[in-house]
């Protein structure tokens, strides 16, 4: 029997941050495990950026403790800095620097020996697909390319943890997809990624775990399907069948756990019909619903549980602002 131990890469305990009377982060407890792509979501002003800046050692908390890769942010800031790559929700520009100079400068700031820098920079630029813009002035890059360059900057010293504040904010759909793919690639390289986003579709697509913060408090945390089970009273499954819509609906209503079955308004092209069921059972019961349809000769083209993070988010949060 093989055991897999999850090591905590970021441990936040009772973290509190106040700005005068306003509490931005309120006794927050959170753990991000090694290898996680952890999505940190919440309304504006919920405390995401404050939390991330405290983890990066840029903001002093009023109370609480943060450990990154086993090192205390308060006691060993230099060790923590060596372990993290931080990308804020804005892109800091040195208008006169070329792309390679920008990375070379930050390499020097991370004390990368001069002889190692050219090959490192080439590798990083290739990773973020910016090799062809090496000699361009940073300020001339589009926002999407700047974000990629910014991501390359966070990787210069080969950190274990990436803290990314809104990495896809303001990007066009293509650039968003590219950044998302990069994050998945980085996770495959063994990096732990702790990132915030308002684009819930991105979070749902790539995150292994999600934390929802509101008014400085963590209101929900876990894998997306776990959160669904915790927060959503019913699971929702979308099914596409080839004709036989009424028959499928009748059959599904008879399955244990199905509390509602209805046809979706927008019909698919040709014979395709779409329906959805609201379901309270477990995975075994859900597979039974599919089996019933198939056994009764209903051609099923698509059977998918809709893990709608937006709905989870709306239910978990109350629209509170501190």
């Amino acid at each position: 029997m093989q055991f897999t131990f999850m090591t905590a890469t970021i441990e936040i305990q009772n973290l509190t941050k106040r700005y005068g009377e306003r509490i931005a982060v309120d006794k927050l407890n959170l753990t991000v495990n090694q290898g996680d792509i952890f999505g940190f979501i919440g309304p504006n002003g919920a405390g995401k950026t404050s939390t991330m800046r405290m983890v990066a050692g840029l903001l002093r908390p009023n109370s609480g403790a943060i450990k990154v890769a086993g090192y205390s942010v308060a006691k060993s800031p230099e060790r923590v800095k060596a372990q993290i790559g931080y990308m804020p929700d804005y892109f800091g520009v040195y208008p006169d620097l070329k792309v390679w100079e920008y990375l070379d400068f930050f390499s020097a700031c991370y004390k990368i020996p001069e002889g190692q820098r050219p090959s490192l920079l080439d590798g990083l630029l290739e990773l973020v697909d910016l090799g062809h813009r090496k000699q361009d002035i940073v300020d001339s890059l589009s926002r999407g390319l700047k974000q990629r360059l910014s991501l390359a900057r966070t990787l210069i010293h080969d950190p274990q943890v990436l803290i990314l504040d809104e990495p896809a904010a303001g990007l066009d759909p293509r650039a968003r997809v590219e950044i998302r793919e990069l994050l998945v690639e980085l996770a495959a390289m063994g990096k732990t990624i702790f990132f915030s986003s308002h684009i819930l579709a991105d979070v749902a697509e790539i995150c292994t775990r999600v934390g929802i913060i509101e008014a400085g408090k963590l209101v929900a945390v876990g894998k997306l399907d776990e959160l669904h089970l915790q927060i959503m009273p019913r699971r929702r499954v979308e099914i596409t069948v080839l004709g036989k819509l009424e028959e499928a609906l009748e059959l599904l209503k008879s399955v244990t756990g199905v509390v509602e079955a209805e046809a979706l308004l927008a019909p698919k092209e040709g014979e395709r019909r779409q329906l959805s069921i609201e379901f309270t059972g477990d995975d075994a019961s859900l597979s039974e619903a599919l089996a019933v349809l198939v056994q009764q000769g209903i051609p099923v083209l698509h059977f998918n549980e809709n893990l709608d993070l937006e709905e989870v988010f709306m239910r978990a949060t109350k629209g509170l602002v501190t």
Partner: protein
Amino acid sequence: MKPIEWPWKNPVMVKEIRTRMRGNRAFLLVTIHLVLLSIVVGLAYYLLMTSMSNIGLVQQRVYLGKAVFGLVVWIELVTVSFIAPALTSGAISTERERQTYDLLRVTLLPARSLVLGKYASGVIFIFLLLFTSIPMQSPAFLIGGVTPQEIIISILILSVSAIALCAIGVFFSAFLSRTMVSTVLSFAVATFLVFGIPVISSVILLTFTKSLTGVANDFNPISLSILVFAGWLMVSLTPLATIIGTEVGLLQQHSLFLTNIQITDKVNVIVLSPWIPHVAIYLVLSLLLLWISIQRIKQVER
């Protein structure tokens, strides 16, 4: 073993110099500075030459040489006073405004390297302006009347002025988040040090000299000596007065290090030539301001 951090490899300094010297901005600034200086020196030389009845006389040549030399030094001092604070008053605050400050603070770059790198790039550029203008003093060498000691002392005073005024700029920019405010305050302090103190000192001197004339003998010699030392310190606080004070000492007593001040028939005070305390005060002030700036940068935002 920890690798040695050579000062000339400071990444902030390298980046700042690289971007400052890029394009034609730096070239234009140095050129404009030299062209203006040449015009002023040329005009001064022409006017003095034409106003002098007998330029062949040694005394008149000495006067002409000293006048041209003094003018170049004065222009250099004005240049340093206006350019040095401008070069560094945005050193740290610009990083905050450009939103690059957090990016730097999250790296392994020590606060010391950030502050000293910014500071050094400013000092190096002002030194470039100062040293490229040294040939402008050549008419004074040709005419004569200027000693190597005077040249060395003037370069030293201009250099420490540049060093201190750059440190003042860095200090304000480390504490203030807006470059505009930092620049205004840096200029205010620089103007006070370079021009304000001489003006205030002159007013005090003119007001009290008359009332003290003839009554100096009634004073306690110790009180009188303290007053002289305080006045001498005022002279040493400002580069312009320091240059004049040192020159007076050199001309009257031919002493580079000590100046003898005859207060009354009985009281005679020997003080250090003003350039010595000036250099010491400005260097200590610079070190102190840089140290405070480093401590400020080390602090984590609250």
